[in-house]
């Protein structure tokens, strides 16, 4: 601890121990605890206490009967725990009988302060820190704290209750660490007393008829099996497993969620998963749980690496059951050789589906989400029933939009429950998108595209459903097979695109901005991937979509303008801009797009469109976009000028990104440009650095970078620093001796830099000579600056010293604020 902090500490302790002093807020106390924790982790707590006796004094103060505030009491308990985590320090505190006073029966337990949840929480957390060594276990046994922990499991505060459960698991683990390690056969009766007591308590709880107690016991066990994989856990499971299995015979099943968590935690444990009885219990549980509760267990089982095939099949069956019901309700054969074939809609599942709108939507959404998680996993069931799943997703969507023909009463009811259910629509569209990773029978794929088109077309699709429909459509489009031997799109896709584009067109005219935005995002993505496909280009150019997208550059909603900028940038990059193809005006419209984007960059009142423009420009420069290469220097100069004035730091940072690309291109950084891009003129590549520097000077890149170096937003300054370091590394070896050092130009630039550093604006630098720039670069301590910038901007304010001062200042001990007080 630095001396200044040591000097302030006694005052702090006095303030904290004085019930008359208003205590600093909780955040300060939390920060103090974090600080003490860091100190004790780094060194000896004993030494710390010996050097700062005021800390022990503070802890003793707590023992005295006085009206200490609940948060200071809680703070002290946690602080004592942190110190006592080290065994020597624990002994030291024990000598003073401090610990029994704090955590034993004589402590706050049972006193008035105990009613405050924060005190109980402090007590638990203090113990949690403290229990790290065997002495602590003896202490626990002696002071009777375990019983208190047991009772706190049912605390009214959820935080306290959960912490109590975790503490029990921790104590159990610790108490078993010594004797059980290396002794896998150690039987339960030989366990340490502490462990015996906890296990006894767990047994009692598991036998209890009160569901909360059962839940508590299950949670403790879940934590134990989840964190500890020592051999003794096998003995524990052998002892408690039968009790857990007994729970399955109860109806209704108590604490189903916790039971699922426990069983999965046990099954994941490497020590236990070879246990056959466990698989039997899991199978039994799957049968007992309601369809809604069984889903998470089934998913968990399917995620396990080594689990019997029969159980996996059963679990997969549980997951698929709701979908089988849906398919059956629509009289759809699950389709050979799908897994769903054997699964007939179990009546319990049907009852759950039909019980209410929310139950139906809940079960279907959860099922779809589980299958979505399962799909990409390597251990997913094989064969994967792609076709029936596709069929089910399509049928669910059809039930939702009312176009499915129900085959039975169940179907009729499902239709009524699901009609217009946005939640299920969203989940099903997400799921459908996931299924695009693999294909299916052509007939089904056609159905997929047609149901997607129905959703995109329907005026009833809500904005969020439309967004999902666009996303799913994109995924299916991109996964659609290419015609063999031909790089163009297959005829089905071509046909679909022809129907899709008018829909996109209409959506771009929607009065709802979210819809226009999703439409533009879709356009951007699909163009990015297919801009080069002749089929796509043809369909797109014969539609009005590019013109509509351009019109949206002037949309009243800034998000839409930003998306329009990105979309237009993409279209233009691919030569798909509205009239780009017209032979009379080659590039005429393109220019106007550049002008329009520059206008947005300099005039738009919102940040998003301007950021989007900068991204498009950077990409254009990187790709060697025709408009840019026409006069790259002029383009860069205009963009940098606009970006330097921008109030949005992200725009300025993106300006530096663009500058970096230009820099790399100008200095001939290998691999800096896209292989497909039009290569920068060879002359630039070969030109000596001095000439390249001339170009950088002409676009005023240095002024932009120097100003950014002192930007009030740290990321901008960091980026600029990196850019200048890169520049110096590339240029300084090529330049001659420091011929320009001390010249009047250099002096004036350095003076300007000083002003900027001080936060003043100052006039522009004007035209700079490369020599001047190099001299300035050489003289700057860029590494030092980078180091300073790397530290967080509030590193001064965050220091412990500052924290102590803040706490003291808040109560006026430092006297600085006295003038303000009357």
């Amino acid at each position, binding site marked *: 601890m630095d001396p200044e902090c040591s000097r302030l500490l006694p005052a702090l302790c006095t303030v904290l121990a004085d019930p008359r002093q208003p205590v600093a807020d909780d955040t300060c106390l939390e920060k103090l605890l974090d600080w003490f924790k860091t100190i004790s982790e780094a060194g000896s707590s004993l030494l710390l206490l010996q050097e700062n006796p005021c800390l022990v004094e503070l802890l003793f103060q707590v023992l005295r009967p006085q009206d200490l505030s609940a948060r200071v009491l809680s703070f002290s308990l946690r602080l004592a725990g942190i110190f006592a985590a080290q065994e020597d320090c624990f002994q030291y505190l024990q000598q003073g009988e401090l610990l029994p006073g704090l955590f034993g029966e004589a402590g706050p337990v049972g006193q008035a302060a105990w009613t405050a949840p924060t005190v109980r929480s402090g007590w638990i957390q203090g113990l949690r820190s403290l229990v790290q060594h065997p002495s602590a276990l003896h202490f626990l046994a002696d002071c009777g704290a375990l019983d208190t922990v047991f009772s706190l499991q049912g605390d009214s505060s959820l935080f306290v209750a959960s912490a109590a459960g975790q503490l029990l698991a921790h104590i159990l683990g610790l108490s078993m660490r010594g004797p059980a390690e290396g002794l896998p056969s150690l039987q339960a009766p030989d366990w340490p007393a502490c462990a015996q007591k906890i296990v006894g308590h767990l047994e009692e709880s598991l036998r209890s008829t009160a569901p909360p107690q059962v839940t508590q016991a299950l949670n403790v066990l879940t934590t134990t099996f989840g964190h500890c994989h020592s051999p003794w856990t096998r003995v524990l499971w052998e002892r408690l497993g039968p009790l857990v299995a007994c729970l399955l015979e109860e109806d209704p099943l108590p604490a189903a969620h916790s039971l699922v968590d426990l069983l999965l935690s046990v099954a994941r444990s490497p020590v236990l998963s070879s246990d056959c009885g466990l698989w039997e219990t899991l199978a039994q549980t799957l049968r007992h749980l309601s369809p809604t509760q069984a889903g998470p267990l089934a998913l968990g089982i399917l995620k396990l690496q080594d689990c019997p095939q029969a159980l996996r099949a059963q679990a997969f069956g549980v997951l698929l059951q709701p979908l089988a019901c849906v398919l059956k309700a629509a009289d759809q054969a699950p389709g050979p050789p799908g897994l769903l074939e054997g699964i007939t809609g179990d009546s319990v599942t049907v009852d759950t589906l039909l019980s209410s709108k929310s139950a139906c939507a809940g079960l279907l959404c959860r099922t779809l989400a589980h299958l979505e998680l399962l799909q990409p996993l390597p251990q997913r069931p094989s064969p994967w029933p792609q076709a029936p799943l596709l069929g089910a997703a399509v049928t669910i969507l059809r039930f939702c939009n009312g176009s499915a023909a129900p085959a039975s009463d169940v179907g009729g*009811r499902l239709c009524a429950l699901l009609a217009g259910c946005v939640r299920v629509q969203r989940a099903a569209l997400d799921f459908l998108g996931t299924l695009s990773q693999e294909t299916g029978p052509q007939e089904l794929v056609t159905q997929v595209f047609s149901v997607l088109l129905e959703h995109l077309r329907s*005026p*009833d699709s809500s904005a969020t459903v439309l967004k999902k429909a666009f996303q799913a459509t994109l995924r299916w489009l991109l996964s659609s097979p290419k015609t063999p031997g031909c790089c163009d799109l297959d005829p089905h896709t071509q046909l679909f695109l022809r129907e899709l584009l008018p829909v996109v067109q209409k959506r771009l005219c*929607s009065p709802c901005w979210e819809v226009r935005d999703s439409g533009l995002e879709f356009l951007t993505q699909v163009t990015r991937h297919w801009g080069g496909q002749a089929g796509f280009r043809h369909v797109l150019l014969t539609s*009005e979509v590019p013109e509509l997208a351009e*019109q949206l550059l002037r949309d*009243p909603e800034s998000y839409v303008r930003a998306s329009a900028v990105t979309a237009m940038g993409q279209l233009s990059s691919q030569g798909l801009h509205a009239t780009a193809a017209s032979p009379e005006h080659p590039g005429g419209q393109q220019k106007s797009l550049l002008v329009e984007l520059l206008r947005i960059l300099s005039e738009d009142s919102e940040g998003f469109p301007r950021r989007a423009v900068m991204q498009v420009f950077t990409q254009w420069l990187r790709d060697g976009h025709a408009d840019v290469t026409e006069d790259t220097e002029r383009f860069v100069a205009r963009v940098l000028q606009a970006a330097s004035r921008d109030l949005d730091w992200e725009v300025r940072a993106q300006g530096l990104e663009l500058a970096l690309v230009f820099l790399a291109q100008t200095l001939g950084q290998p691999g800096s440009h896209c292989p497909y891009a039009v290569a920068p003129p060879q002359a630039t590549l070969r030109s000596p650095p001095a000439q390249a520097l001339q170009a950088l000077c002409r676009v005023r890149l240095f002024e932009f970078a120097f100003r950014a170096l002192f930007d009030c937003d740290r990321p901008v300054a960091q980026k600029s620093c990196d850019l200048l370091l890169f520049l110096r590394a590339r240029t300084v070896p090529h330049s001659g001796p420091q011929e320009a050092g001390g010249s009047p130009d250099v002096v004036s630039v350095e003076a300007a830099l000083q002003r900027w550093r001080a936060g003043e604006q100052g006039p522009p630098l004007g035209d700079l000579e490369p020599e001047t720039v190099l001299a300035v670069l050489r003289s700057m301590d860029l590494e030092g600056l980078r180091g300073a910038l790397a530290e967080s901007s509030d590193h001064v304010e965050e220091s412990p010293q500052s924290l102590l001062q803040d706490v003291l200042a808040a109560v006026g001990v430092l006297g600085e604020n006295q003038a303000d007080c009357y």
Partner: protein
Amino acid sequence: MKLYCLSGHPTLPCNVLKFKSTTVMLDCGLDMTSTLNFLPLPLVQSPRLSNLPGWSLKDGNAFLDKELKECSGHVFVDSVPEFCLPETELIDLSTVDVILISNYHCMMALPYITEHTGFTGMVYATEPTVQIGRLLMEELVNFIERVPKAQSASLWKNKDIQRLLPSPLKDAVEVSTWRRCYTMQEVNSALSKIQLVGYSQKIELFGAVQVTPLSSGYALGSSNWIIQSHYEKVSYVSGSSLLTTHPQPMDQASLKNSDVLILTGLTQIPTANPDGMVGEFCSNLALTVRNGGNVLVPCYPSGVIYDLLECLYQYIDSAGLSNIPFYFISPVANSSLEFSQIFAEWLCHNKQTKVYLPEPPFPHAELIQTNKLKHYPSIHGDFSNDFRQPCVVFTGHPSLRFGDVVHFMELWGKSSLNTVIFTEPDFSYLEALAPYQPLAMKCIYCPIDTRLNFIQVSKLLKEVQPLHVVCPEQYTQPPPAQSHRMDLMIDCQPPAMSYRRAEVLALPFKRRYEKIEIMPELADSLVPMEIKPGISLATVSAVLHTKDNKHVLQPPPRPAPPTSGKKRKRASDDIPDCQVLKPLLSGSIPVEQFVQTLEKHGFSDIKVEDTAKGHIVLLQEAETLIQIEEDSTHIICDNDEMLRVRLRDLVLKFLQKF
């Protein structure tokens, strides 16, 4: 309590409720779908329409070719359009005491009822309903009267001939009752019978029932009605909306605890969500105009048009349509736009607050100010000078059979650049377009119906929990075209009672109670006796006086002092005789104690039998039985009056008298 159903149209209802001693007509909607069978009335001579070939029977008989014309395979009546009136034979309409109007669309048959049936009662409606209803009627009369048609076809209505006609004429119902449009004079006379009411105002009908209009949220001044007596409550829900549009929100709470809820006027397009349709409307409008095409919106002069203009107000700038002119053409366009701005108290909260700023509640005022929206009474006159294309035209009538819309259909129908967008749900757009075929212009169907859908109805019914629901039969089964959509029908317990045109329903509840007042001096004279803790009884002897459906108990006349014979005689004429009443008994007979008492009084050989309803005490010796039940006691003995009286007195000992 009976309900006479005079209209089969679920959204244009006309029902008569007989409740207590009153006869109340609930709405008088006019079914105008009949006009779809007629040829359009062109404002400007249309060579196409006038040159349509006459229709002849299969055997070549052409005697109907003057009345019926053929167009693209459909047959139309070439005559002044006629409307299908509510049933007039089911009940004598002159006996109707009052007519309650729920919204301006549901009063279009009013002149037929008030002017031609001997109706002498009163009509109740809110002010906006009357004013906008007047505009709708005025527009209708104007549309039809300004294109006079010499011919009135009637031959085809002959039942024997109608049978031979192709569909849909063959299947048209009640054609003999179809009538031509009323005149402005009849409109004025009908409207003069209306009494204006405000929301939640209580109106007494002959002291028997009270009627109250409640906001229904569907249109300016639209109402649901509560018809209630002291112990019965009937709610009439017609054309209600829970969406946030321009009118005051729907008052649901007051509908609670109804014995019967009559539910009409739900959305006609339950699968179309109004928000989605507005989006569709805007997108299609923008796409058409961008391509240089014109947009035609057939509409009523009031209602959804206000909301559409408001949406467009927000939308046109974003869609780059600022320079496109919007025209609103109707004989009542000006009045409609202005009326909407002055009914502040009938508007939703947002719009009401604008009035205090002060700003016009609807943004169409600004559209007019900035010349983006222009309105004209007709295509003649100023409009032809200002007309600029591409443009958007809002005009009537949505049936496409009369009004300025006919002209635009003829003008724009040939170009595929133009689009007609149907927003009113009242007419099938395919049938409306039939006489314009073949048609090149695009047709978009975006019906915007803000009235309750079945999900909202189900929530509403759960909320207000009426004992019985009565509704048109169409609502009790899924729509014929979507028979699998079980969600598109009313689902409630007990199942809703349904009605169809010309049916009389006996409503399923009996009136049990009537409120009676007691005069203070009579109440004063009562001496209640507590028979159980908290329950006191008193006998009342009084004269029941009934006048104007109010019942009052008055003190009985004192026995008049014996005066001159003449006077006394007169008094006894007026006042009913007051007989001395036997005291009333209360309490129950404890069988064991009763038997003990009997034994004490010398009866022996007593046997007690338990029965389902009580006990039988058998006095075997005396051959007598005493049947004791919860609400009666019988002494059955064989002609021994002495014994009976003895036993009776013993029974009475256990009972209280008062």
